[in-house]
């Protein structure tokens, strides 16, 4: 009897899984809500920035470059290189550079991954027109996704 139950129990469990909720998010149609600690795109406050270049110097991947904008030096960030380590944000003496949780940065070419100071100073667009879900943990079912109201 042991052999038979060894064969049939996994099959029954697999069968049971068919009717459970799937764990995958249908991403482009449904978006995951970023957590509080999500490190996403930067945001620049041009009025606070003094163009000291500490962010560019501290960047481990040399993603930041200082460029001329409005007769002053401002950081320009290449998201093809950025590793989202947040060192530049912690180095900024005036708190001009901040971090947001925007994670949808995909682009069709490398050139459009370079964000100029002008683009950086605009806050990122929030996720709209889609269902936003977050991960919840349940006692019996394990992890699952639930809609955020």
């Amino acid at each position, binding site marked *: 009897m042991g052999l038979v139950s060894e064969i049939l129990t*996994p*099959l029954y469990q*697999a*069968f049971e*899984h068919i009717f*459970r909720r*799937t*764990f*995958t998010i*249908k991403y482009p149609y449904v978006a995951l809500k970023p957590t509080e600690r999500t490190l996403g795109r930067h945001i620049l406050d041009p009025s606070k920035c003094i163009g000291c270049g500490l962010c560019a110097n501290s960047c481990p991947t040399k993603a930041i470059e200082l460029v001329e904008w409005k007769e002053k030096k401002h950081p320009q960030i290449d998201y093809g290189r950025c590793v989202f380590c947040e060192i530049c944000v912690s180095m900024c003496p005036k708190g001009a550079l901040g971090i947001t949780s925007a994670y949808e940065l995909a682009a069709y070419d490398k050139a459009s991954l370079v964000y100029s100071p002008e683009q950086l100073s605009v806050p990122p667009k929030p996720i709209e027109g889609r269902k936003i879900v977050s991960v919840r943990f349940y006692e019996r079912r394990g992890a699952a996704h639930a809609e955020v109201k």
Partner: protein
Amino acid sequence: MEFLAIVNLIIDAIVKILPAVLFMIGFPLLGVWYERKLLARVMLRIGPLHVGKYAGVLQLIADFMKLAAKEIIIPTKANKNIFIAAPIVATIVAALPLAVIPFDGNWVVYRFDLNLLFVFAMASLIPLIILLTGWASYNKYSFIGGLRVIFQMLAYEIPLVLSVLGVVILTQSFDLIKICNAQSKIWFGLLQPLGLLVFYIASIAEVERMPFDIPTAEQELVIGWQTEYSGILFGLFMMANYISFGIHSLLITIIFLGGWLGPSFLPPMAWLLLKTAIVATLTMMFRGTYPRVRMDQLLRLGWRILIPLALINILLTLLIPTIGLGVVT
């Protein structure tokens, strides 16, 4: 009049081959999509999603077009003729049994008395083609895969034929139509559960599906005897594999599960396809459930368990009429 008669003949011929051809094309396309969806649900994933309006139904057509558009790479030291011919021959040989498998009491492309034997003959040809493929690819993975196919064939081919023998003894016939129609009172699967079990396990091994996919073991042999194949040639092998999978599901249904017999609110062919779909679903579930067995485990299963069980089944079959329980005359 002459012209009309010829047109009638052509229409008759087309109607006659229609289910077989549709099964040959439809089962690989819909079957692979269904399997991917089903396995995804077993693993709590979603599976194909984007292509096609509903749940990625057209995914397989997109995949097939992608395969067809890809370059065919032939290894320098490979035997080119065999390398190119093998997938084409394999697909034809795998699909040939559809010419004699009935989809209905009368709906069969070519009817003759020994069609069950013909199906087995064609099915046992495929391992030889695969051995040739493995040898012609000039690749160690392909060659080991080819050898494993032959080993595997030794393990399952004998119990596969032995397990059907019980049914053949009961019906006194190798004709699938007679075998199926003899089950109007009780299915042979209920009458001979041992035969059904042995035939089912052996047929899974025959079509190299998990847990018996030893020749194409992805973790050990890249993808076994298909390693060097690319583009449409790989697609043809895939198609051949799924056609023989479909044919074996059909065979189980016809021989053991009453085939097209069923209550009359559905047409006979619908019953056949419904039962086939259920059998195929169960086989696909095995893929999502069980780990692969080793070569020695398969040989042990074949020789020590399946063959004795098949022989016991034949013995019981011979005993049933003598003690007066014969259902079929």
